[in-house]
Each structure stands twice: as C-alpha cells, then as structure tokens.
C-alpha cells in the first residue's frame, strides 16, 4: 500500500470502519512509514478532542422560552368548529346591535350552570343562546351557547384560565384534549367568550360595551402573545380595529374537564393561543 492510498483511507482507519484485510495492509504500512503513522495519530487525537468538546459543558440548559413558545402554537380547528366559530362571531355582532338598542342592567355575576333564553337568530343557526352570563372567578360577562346536538345539556361556564405558558406540560393540549376538540362530540357544551378591552385592566364583552366592565386579574393575561389585549381602549387608534379576543371553551362532560382556546379573530378557524384545562367541580385550574 502506498502513502497516497493510506491517506485516502485514513478516515476509515481512524474511525475503525475498515474491513480486516484492508486494515492489515494499512497496519503493515503504518509500521514502516513514520509520516503516515504520525498523520494517523494526529487525526485520532483531533477526533478525540472533537468528541471531548461535544461531551464538555458549555451547553446552556433548555430555555424556558422554548416551553413557553411551544405552548403558544397555532392549531387549525376542524371545519365544524370553524363553522361554529363563524356563527358565533355573527351572533356576537348581532347581539351587540340588540344590546345597544335595548339597554338593560347587567346580570348579577355568578357562575352559570343553566340554559339561556332562546334567540331566534340562533335557532335559525341551529343553536341556542343565552343573553348574558357571568363568570364569578374573573368577574367577566360572556355569552354561552350549546350545540343543537344536545340542546338540553347544561351550559358549563368556567373562568378563562389562560395559562402563564411557562410550563409546556400544563399549558399545551394533551393528546386527549386535541382529540376531543377534533371530534364533533367535543363541541357539546362549547362556550364562546368574547373579551375586549375598554381600558387597561378592564374587560368587557365587545358586544356589550360599558355594561359589563369588570376588573380582570392582570397576571392571567400577562403573556406575550396576548399583548394586543392591552390596548387603551376598545378600538386601537393605530389600526381602527376593535381589540377584542375570542375564546372557545369546550366542556368535556365525559372527562369532566374544561378546555380553553384563544381563537384568531380574523380567522376563527385558527387557534392562536393557550389551551388550559380545569376540572369540573374544582375551582382551581389544573394547569
């Protein structure tokens, strides 16, 4: 074997990837050729150093930002949810007009576990709506409705427990929750919440301005992805757009959990923010 042939096969030699016959030929050459032997030793040392670098410290721990960002992902909802959301947005807009035309006192804020009055528009849409309902924990007003598949099922309204997002496990959907959402059955008891800013730290239903103002716990929404929630008014002066957000809550009666998603207002078929879970019958969120 010549020096040139040895150099051509040097990588296989130092990595121990050579078959026995070739290895023997090369080994014989190495015994007699000092230059090739030195070269091989040099490469071996270099590879050992490279591997040692890979084993050495210097890699920072996994960034908490990663867990946070993983929890703020976009997921596309199935078509049926998309349709449902579109109908809900239409309902909210219609309700807003009605609310302004016939103002009334806001309902007492309590956790709602019942059905609302029927609304003709929703009947046409095959849905049932409540005129107003409150969530005790957050002092929010909201609209809730159920799908026609189970018109008699109770509305299950829970606080909007948007996770802080620091813990991937607790704020991301489990396989179960995602499967549930993708299943039409999961929509039984689905709840739509439209939250809007009137002034900083104060929220109300966009469809019922002023009447349902309530202080909102700031830490619940202190999230990067929700920063646009913190507008100084219900209309963003820069864009002229109203600053409300739409959430969907799905109550899974079988699993006894409530799941919450923030939906892209402009594209209601997309989920843009946190998912959270809360055990029914328990005041504390599971996240």
């Amino acid at each position, binding site marked *: 074997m010549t020096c040139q042939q040895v150099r051509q096969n*040097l*990588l*296989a030699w130092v990595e121990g990837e050579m078959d026995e016959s070739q290895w023997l030929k090369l080994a014989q050459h190495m015994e007699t050729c000092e230059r090739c032997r030195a*070269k091989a030793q*040099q*490469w071996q040392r*270099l*590879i050992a*150093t*490279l*591997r*040692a*670098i*890979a084993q*050495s410290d210097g*890699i*920072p721990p*996994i*960034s908490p*930002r*990663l867990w946070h*960002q*993983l929890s703020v*992902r*976009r997921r596309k909802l199935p078509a049926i949810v998309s349709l449902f959301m579109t109908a809900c947005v239409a309902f909210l807009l219609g309700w807003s007009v009605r609310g302004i035309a016939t103002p009334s006192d806001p309902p007492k804020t309590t956790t709602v576990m019942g059905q609302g009055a029927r609304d003709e528009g929703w009947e046409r849409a095959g849905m049932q709506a409540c005129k107003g309902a409150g969530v005790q924990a957050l002092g929010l007003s909201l609209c809730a409705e159920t799908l026609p598949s189970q018109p008699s099922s109770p509305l299950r309204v829970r606080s909007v427990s948007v996770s802080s997002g620091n813990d*991937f*496990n607790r704020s*991301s*959907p*489990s*396989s*179960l*929750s*995602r*499967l549930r959402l993708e299943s039409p059955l999961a929509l039984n008891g689905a709840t739509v919440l439209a939250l809007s800013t009137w002034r900083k730290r104060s929220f109300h239903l966009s469809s019922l301005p002023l009447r349902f103002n309530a202080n909102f716990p700031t830490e619940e929404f202190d999230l990067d992805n929700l920063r646009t929630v913190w507008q100084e008014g219900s209309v963003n002066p820069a864009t002229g757009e109203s600053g409300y957000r739409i959430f969907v809550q799905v109550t899974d009666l079988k699993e006894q959990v409530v799941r919450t998603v923030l939906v892209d207002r402009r594209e209601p078929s997309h989920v843009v923010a946190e998912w959270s879970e809360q055990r029914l019958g328990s005041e504390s969120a599971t996240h």
Partner: protein
Amino acid sequence: MGMDEMELVRRAKAGDTVAFETLVHRYWAKAYRLAESIVGSTDVEDVVVEAFVQAWKSLQNFRQQSSFGTWFFRIVINQAKQWQRKAASWTTEPLEEDFCSSDEALSFRDIEEIACERDWQQKVKMAVQKLPEHLRLPLVLRFWDELPYPEIAQVLGIKESTARMRVASALRQLAIVLAKLEALP
C-alpha cells in the same frame, strides 16, 4: 434511538407533549452545537428554540421515513441559515463565499486568532468554526452529533461518499491548522 425514539415521535405526533419534551431533552445539546457551528456563539439559543418550535408545528409532516434526528437536524440547519442570512445584513464579517469556494487551509488571520486562545479545546472549536460551511457541517454532524455517514448525507442532501470526503477534508484542514498552532511559540 431505535424503537424507543420512533415510539416517542409517534406519541408526540398524537399530541403527547411529554413525549416531545423527552425529544427536546434528548436533542437540545446536539441541536445547540449544530446551530452554534453555523451562527457562532451569539443567538444560538434563539435558533434552537425556533427549531424546536418549528419541529413541533410540523411534526405531522414528519413521515418517519428517516430518524427524528435526521429530520430535526435539517430544521436546525434551515433555521440557523435563515438566522445567518438575517445577521448578514448587518454583520461586517466576510461573506461565506470568500473562503467557502475552496478547501484551502484557513487564512493567516484566522490562525492568528485561534492561536490567541489558551485552551486547546477552545482552539479546536474555534478552528472548526473557521472551516468553510460545506466542511464544517459534516464534521459537526459526525463528531459532535455522532450521526452515521448515511444520515449525514441525508441531512445535508449529499452522497454518503461526499460526506466522508468532506469530513476527511475537514480533518485534514484542522490538522494543518492545529499543527501550525503547536509549532507556534
């Protein structure tokens, strides 16, 4: 690796965040070194975070015809290169093409810079960093990420023989540079 990893991927695809978290733990350091070899010491964390987020988002597109590592390292490289392109708009470093076009040894300026580093491992690391990208990436994937040559070839979209040649070429360059450094007083 093997079945265990495939199972993790399968579960992660089904939405199991714990399974994906395990993959993150398994690949964080490897992804970090790979990204670092492309973007340098700054912004590495951002690149790696973005790569994992991207991987999670597009996990449904992963058909598991290759290993998770092969698929994921491609994402890391893409993210790092995107980052590099952004950085190139404001950086004053010479363009990659300046020394990427040939396999010639590093410039005197590079060697001088490396020689200033006291620690031997740091010298080697810096020398790796100075290699042209087409040699640096196969080397990093081989010895830092411990990928077999067929997988290196898959990640980089090159032939296996080319991957071997490039690793050998990278070692040759490093050996020359480091020999010069050792010869320095």
